[in-house]
């Protein structure tokens, strides 16, 4: 995205972003976790990225944090990284052996042409600290602005 203030034409930048957004909502609906739990992990993920000098400059950086946060919660709920890695390997395998005969979900993803980073080993590294207490940041009885720029 050239201009960060540009308006995107659709709600989600990529099919996987839409899907990961919906999975979080579906899992919360099903009671696997609370949306607030997810938010705490997302805040930590974004905070860690920014603390490390990275920045959320576009949708893809934001949804990277989103999917990493979902991975963390799923792991906390008992899906081991090993299990996840096995399923991922079989998805990659199926995808590359198929090339043009994609599963319906793959049709969109095939257009993404993004770099495939070797993230398998790094996705859980940065969620240990930066648990910004959501309650510190929480609502008071009467909401107050966080910042006021006075009239001059």
């Amino acid at each position, binding site marked *: 995205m050239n201009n960060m203030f540009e308006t995107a034409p659709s709600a989600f930048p990529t099919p*996987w972003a839409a899907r990961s957004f919906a999975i979080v909502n579906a899992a919360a609906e099903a009671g696997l976790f609370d*949306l607030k739990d997810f938010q705490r992990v997302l805040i930590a993920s974004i905070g860690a990225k920014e603390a490390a000098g990275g920045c959320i400059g576009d949708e893809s950086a934001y949804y990277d944090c989103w999917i990493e946060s979902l991975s963390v919660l799923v792991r906390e709920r008992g899906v081991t990284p090993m299990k996840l890695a096995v399923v991922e390997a079989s998805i990659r395998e199926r995808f590359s052996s198929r090339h043009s005969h994609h599963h319906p979900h793959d049709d969109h993803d095939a257009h993404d042409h993004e770099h495939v980073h070797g993230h398998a080993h790094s996705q859980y590294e940065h969620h240990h600290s930066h648990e910004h207490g959501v309650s510190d940041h929480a609502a008071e009885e009467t909401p107050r602005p966080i910042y006021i720029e006075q009239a001059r």
Partner: protein
Amino acid sequence: MDNHSSNEKPWQAVRTEAVESLLVELGVIDSARVDEIVRHYEEKVGPKGGARVVAKAWTDQEFKKRLLADGLAACAELGLGGPETEKLHVVENTASVHNAVVCTLCSCYPWPILGVPPAWYKSSAYRSRMVREPRKLLTEMGLPLDPSVEIRVWDSVSEIRYLVLPERPEGTESFTEEQLADLVTRDAMIGVAKVTV
């Protein structure tokens, strides 16, 4: 964008598919429900919901009072709402006070009323600058405010989300509620634009 051979899927797409398939296998979620949620946010929920709320507040003083007192209850009167938002605080713009909304830590936003937030709302730049130099940032975003206007910035969090009630533009006295709703933009309800005719 890289045009390398596309027999490799982005890691995020692989991860998403893997998590979905594991959660389906565990009986936690159902892919049909995931499809439904995607469609809901792509097609059904969006700023038009919030625009109806604003237009009604402009034309119905009693509704406006209820909206300012309890945003969620008033939105529910129009059939808007959902489990994602616990409290909605509506802040009204006037000639001397301009309100703008940010989520400093992540991306809290009133989804059921405005849909999913735009990319820039989630950017580090917007989130950090809005609480440091809102006047300058708003000017860069195309909203130069008179120096005599006070800017109040509201930090959206999981427990409380904000909706800006923009000023009704002049020259719209004869407009119907529907015509008014057509004027109201998402950006005006976040507080980074004004409603214009």
